[in-house]
């Protein structure tokens, strides 16, 4: 199967994709974009979260074929022209990154939250990120990071 998909604004075309491959596998192993992570590949951890036509999805649950002709944005596409997105910057500054394996998925989920809800309450942040597991941080500094990003976004 041939897959043609726009990822982070660039058209990618890959051949010989086996029908059972997920979008996550194709991104990671065929398109050279391993930023989206593979912590469970069962739809339970959120580490693979990407935008598919603007909607956050678990890339491990999307069959590669479903992405044909659609637009995907991954963690690699959040920064623009070498500038970190405010959510990325806030994760670095707030200490929300330890091992960082959860980070790519959390960034996409937090990015989506802040786009939808400019000034989220703590409960709204918790609800929005409830599908993203982190084993290292206990989430406190992830909350700090999202609060920081939201407040900066509001001022911008």
């Amino acid at each position, binding site marked *: 199967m041939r897959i043609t998909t726009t990822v982070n604004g660039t058209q990618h075309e890959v051949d010989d994709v*086996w029908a*059972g*491959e997920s979008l996550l596998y194709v991104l*990671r*192993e065929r398109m*050279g*974009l*391993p*930023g*989206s*992570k*593979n*912590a*469970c*590949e*069962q739809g*339970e*951890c959120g*580490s693979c979260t990407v935008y598919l036509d603007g909607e956050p999805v678990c890339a491990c649950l999307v069959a590669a074929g479903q992405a044909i002709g659609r637009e995907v944005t*991954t*963690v*690699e596409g*959040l*920064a623009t022209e070498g500038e*970190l997105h405010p959510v*990325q*910057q806030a*994760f*670095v*500054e707030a*200490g929300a*990154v*330890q*091992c*960082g*394996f*959860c*980070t*790519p998925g959390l*960034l996409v989920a937090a990015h989506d939250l802040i786009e939808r809800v400019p000034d989220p309450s703590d*409960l709204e*942040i*918790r*609800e929005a*990120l*409830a*599908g*993203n*597991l*982190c*084993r*290292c*941080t*206990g*989430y*406190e*500094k*992830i*909350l700090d990071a999202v609060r920081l990003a939201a407040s900066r976004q509001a001022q911008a």
Partner: protein
Amino acid sequence: MSTDVGTRTTTTPAGRIGDSALRPDGTLKVTGEFAYASDLWHDDMVWGVTLRSPHPHARIRGIDITEALTVPGVTAVLTADDVPGENAVGLEHADQPVLASEFVRYEGEPVALVAADHPETARRAAARIRVDYEVLPAVTDPLRAMDEDAPPVHRPGNLVRHLQLRRGDPSVTAPVVVSLDFEVGMQDQAFLGPESGLAVPAEDGGVDLYVATQWLHVDQRQMCLALGMPSEKVRLHLAGVGGAFGGREDLSVHVHACLLALRTGRPVKMSYGREESFFGHVHRHPAWLTYEFGAERDGTLVYARARTVLDGGAYASSTAAVVGNAGTLGLGPYRIPNVAVDAYGVFTNNPPCGAMRGFGCVQAAFAHEALMDELADVVGVDRIAIRQLNGMREGDRNITGQVIDSAAPVAELLQIVSDLPLPAEREDEPDLRSLPGAVGNTTHGEGVVRGIGYAVTYKNVGFSEGFDDYSTARVRLEMTGGEAVATVHTAAAEVGQGLITVEQQICRTELGVERVVVHPKNTAVGSGGSTSASRQTYVTGGAVKAACEAVRAVVLERAALSLGREVAGLRLDGEKIVGGSGEVLAGLADVLGEDAVEETVEYRHRPTHAIDPETGQGDAHVQFAFSAHRAVVDVDVELGLVKVVALDTAQDVGKAINPDAVVGQIHGGSAQGMGLALMEEVVVTDGHVRNPSFTDYLIPTILDMPPMQVKVLEYADPHAPYGVRGVGEPPTISSGPAVAAAVRAACGRALRRVPIRPEHITGT
């Protein structure tokens, strides 16, 4: 993607010790560019997969790989016959086959390997390997495994270790006696980055392995024996590690990937899925504990007796050392004059158990803290006060007779957590998301009772009982492009905790330079020891400090010579040689010229000692770290659902090299302890794991975690570099017992097992 990435980092947000310097790999991690082990890729690589035993115990009568070899795309199928060296690996005892030959002893034991051009091809081929098993009865009850007539999992028997500890008068009596039986379920480390590695065959006939691990050199030692190769030919490189928590101390893909790479002559990538990960690493030992305290009527402890059984599963792993902790530290941070402890680790056909954050102290803490609450209630003393009454102080001897020769602020830590502000009372019309059951809409506050619980615990830092525990650091100082650059090279694994930040901070502090490059971690430098036992800031930090001091001595010597001054009184700061009153005497560039100054140093902490086999007495540990927690929970006592409302803690860290990172460790460690108290258990029945997925094995989400107040004390340990005290593990030990105590307080039930399940709370 290239393979030569891993933890290489060159950006250096400034920061000396005591500053909250930012991680040097932070930007790479938020842009998706940081290369974890599962991200590695190589031209021409093939994929390796593992065929595992479906049986907890069986004899292998034969293995037929013919059909698997015919699958198009398959490049190799290997069995035990293909292991060139010793078919035995293990952290402490080499008792585990690389690939099972005669017997399989647990469900999930590796039996055969396949390499193919696509992971799915390899999996399908593995499914076509025919293994002829004669299923044998499995020993799955660890208490029964200790019986004389139990079938042995290994010869000569099922006892991995019995630690016997006697102190004072073991037969003394006391006016107040309390006792309990406690059971702790099997916890999984559940690091998010799956076990992965890339093995690349080299022209010299050796192999380079890029892998996620906690200790490159202990892996290398085992791999050399299994591969039958000298260490020069088995080179390890740390790939990006997605968390560890003890679960990467034992080998996973290491030998397997190398065997396939050497056989096929091609790079081989192996990466476990989540289900395989549950079978691919050891777990925290489940434990059965029987504890008794005898006390005066005012609550002063007279004696303690404990019997602890840890299920080690099918192979030894680090069970003996875990028993060491469960025994020597198993009565908590209390002054107890008369003690009898027997701690056992046993073999069964259950999944192998070994290291996990807290290492033997976690299980014991649930028992001693539950019993301390019971004692408080029986003698009518406040639960904080009874701990303060019995709590260790500096200068006391612990139960192995070792003097606690630095701060032991048990009473103060408890005071701090009990003085912290409590969360607000529940509102009349609370947001559903703040209640037990949350948006499940199971209650609007009816039947919800608040409970508060406390716990205080302690843990050894570093390796104990006479282990030669050292780290090596190589530090190089040179001028590059007009700027002084220090390069620090250790083999100590960065697993997310922030060791690389600490290494940079120490170099900046000791050498007075801003730019510090962390060299990729590999076996080209001496061992950094294990990233476990909360030891790296202490031991590898100590090595980096010592290497910097050695470099500085050379530089100042040269400066003294060229300046015609005494070395004493000279300092290195801001790329300048500075005199006694702060006057700049020369630039570092003038002293170094084109040269690089490089020094390699091994650093050891004070020696520890074996304990007496009869009495368990001895100076077994090098350092102790103390922490206390207070948990506040809301419990729906009708449905048995729990919402943790607050989880507050105080901990002595000696010296916070990086205060933000210290707090981050405490947050994450607390979450793991809470997880064991309320939700995390690898459910094993008849030797079979029933829940190997994140659907069925639950770890705390952001909705489960409460806000945490963290108070950090810094009572310098005079024996440790900068006074540091290990940080990573204590929070995992005291948080769970505090949560369990809070749930008990809310529901009024004894709750003698964790994780606490709804039916335990409702008694149904």
